[in-house]
């Protein structure tokens, strides 16, 4: 079972007497694109924060890249990339400066950073924007750049929290091409989204309702199981049983 990169066992987070995440257990394998779906307030972000070592579990356990998320969170952080819902690059730094900063933070050498920056800008067709301040880039470009920065240090897993919110369909398509490329290189992608067409792109999908995982399978099997045509309907079917909203 060497291929398992994320594993949780009855993972739970409570805030006071509100249970945000309620005993979730699942496994994700290497190179997989794992869709983490749920309505607003279902507990997706809290669960993801626990996996990234930003939030300490109330009970239950989990490992990410082979490290315990509660006790070895600093080791977890060395092996993951993270891109949050809120835009997470520095607006007042140039494109190359952002790349350099995160490369440096993960301990890459000056030389490696310089080489990889050139290659990255080339692949993204960003060479002309090397010296552009990030704040003057269009949102879609920022998101593509943020993703590339999140996997710049070749992490084992990358966590994406609603990475394509507010982005146009064409750019979203390009964004998913980047995700597939990363997955082909063996990087596991853990992604939350509200777009059901994106859910179809995932290898496997879990759907959270009121802090619990109500369904977990490939999109194809989920559609078969609920006897519907697309993921949108699978989601409706499950999400309408929810008792809490936002």
């Amino acid at each position, binding site marked *: 079972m060497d291929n398992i990169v994320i594993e949780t066992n009855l993972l739970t987070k409570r805030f006071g007497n509100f249970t945000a995440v309620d005993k979730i257990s699942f496994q994700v394998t290497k190179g997989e694109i794992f869709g983490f779906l749920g309505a607003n307030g279902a507990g997706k972000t809290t669960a993801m924060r626990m996996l*990234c*070592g*930003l*939030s*300490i579990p109330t009970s239950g356990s989990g490992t990410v890249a082979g490290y315990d998320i509660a006790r070895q*969170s*600093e080791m977890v*952080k*060395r092996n*993951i990339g*993270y891109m*949050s819902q*809120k*835009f*997470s*690059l*520095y*607006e*007042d*730094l140039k494109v190359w*400066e952002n790349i*350099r*900063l*995160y*490369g*440096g*933070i*993960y*301990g890459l050498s000056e030389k490696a950073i310089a080489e990889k920056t050139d290659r990255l800008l080339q692949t993204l067709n960003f060479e002309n924007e090397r010296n552009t301040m990030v704040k003057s880039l269009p949102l879609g470009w920022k998101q593509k750049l943020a993703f590339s920065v999140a996997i710049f240090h070749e992490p084992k897993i990358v*966590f994406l929290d609603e990475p394509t919110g507010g982005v146009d369909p064409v750019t979203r398509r390009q964004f998913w091409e980047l995700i597939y490329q990363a997955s082909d290189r063996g990087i596991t992608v853990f992604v939350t989204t509200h777009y059901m067409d994106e859910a179809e792109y995932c290898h496997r999908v879990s759907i959270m309702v009121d802090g619990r995982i109500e369904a977990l399978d490939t999109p194809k099997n989920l559609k078969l199981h609920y006897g519907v045509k697309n993921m949108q309907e699978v989601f409706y079917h499950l999400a309408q049983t929810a008792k809490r909203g936002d």
Partner: protein
Amino acid sequence: MSTLKFLLEKEFKQFFRNPFLPRTLVFMPIMIILIMPFAATMDVRNINVAFVLNEQSPLTNRLIQKVSSSEYFNLVDVTSSSKEALSLVEKGTADMILEVPVGFERKLTREGKGDLLLSINSVNGAKGGIGSSYIATLLNDFALEMRDELAPVVLSSSTPVIQIVPRYLFNASLSYRTYMIPALITILLTLLCSFLPALNIVSEKEAGTIEQINVTPVSKFTFIIAKLLPYWIMGFLVFTIAMILACWVWGLIPVGNVATIYLIAIIYVFAMSGFGLVISNYSGTMQQAMFVIFFFMIVLMMMSGLFTPFRSMPLWAQYITAINPLRYLIEAMRMVYLKGSGIQDIARNLAALIGFAVFFLLWAVQSYKKSN
């Protein structure tokens, strides 16, 4: 420590790209050294005097001459109605009224005594008090001149006179400015090294970028040092510029050792940086942080002996100043700058500030959380 290099690079770039911060570096020392000393002065000048004359005589003319030729007094009106003079005070055009009664000259020449009525606007008690003592000195002078003219021999030999010649130590010209400048410089350090980095950290919280840093292996310590170091450097740069300006513009040179000044300033900066970090750890938004900082800035300044000596405060207020780091710095700065005190003289202040530094830095590290 190579991570620190990358983080420092980022902080410096952001500092100089900020539309506001680099300008602060230039304007702060100018404000504190070139402009504030004019404002922070207790010297009372330009006191506006209105005369009410109930008689006209050569003597009253001489009196008016005497008062209006002084650099401290301006003559605004000479009238015969005390009502009119009072309305001038009410309007704010006059600060004091000097009323000369009927028969003033006659009484003075015949009996050797004269009465004058002085009314002073004392809304500002200090100004009223100082104004009345100035005019008293002036009138005394006037009386002495009169006496010498009227009875030069008899009176001056029969009255024993004790003359006191004061020698003012450390600030010979009794300049309030000299007293204020070493203390005003400390405000620079407080703002630049404590409150600005605190606001910087909170702004990263608001932008969400701190979350991105928290999922990286960057340690708490490295992150905080990268935040503080640029402000420490800038703070001491401005501090040095301010001392040079004080010397150049006001001729104020520290009597004591400059190294002693830097030593105590550095310890103070450690303490206040810790305090700033504590504020940033407990604030979620800039608004919150600004409000808390504003509150503490006023308390720090008012309870530090900056404007008024803390020893003349009531005992309970003196206890509050005992937990104010700024008080220890201002006291020590004045001692070293004006009296030339050495390290042993300010040992108590050093010890207190070291205590604050340890306390706030421990609290800051304990309350900064990468996860919750």
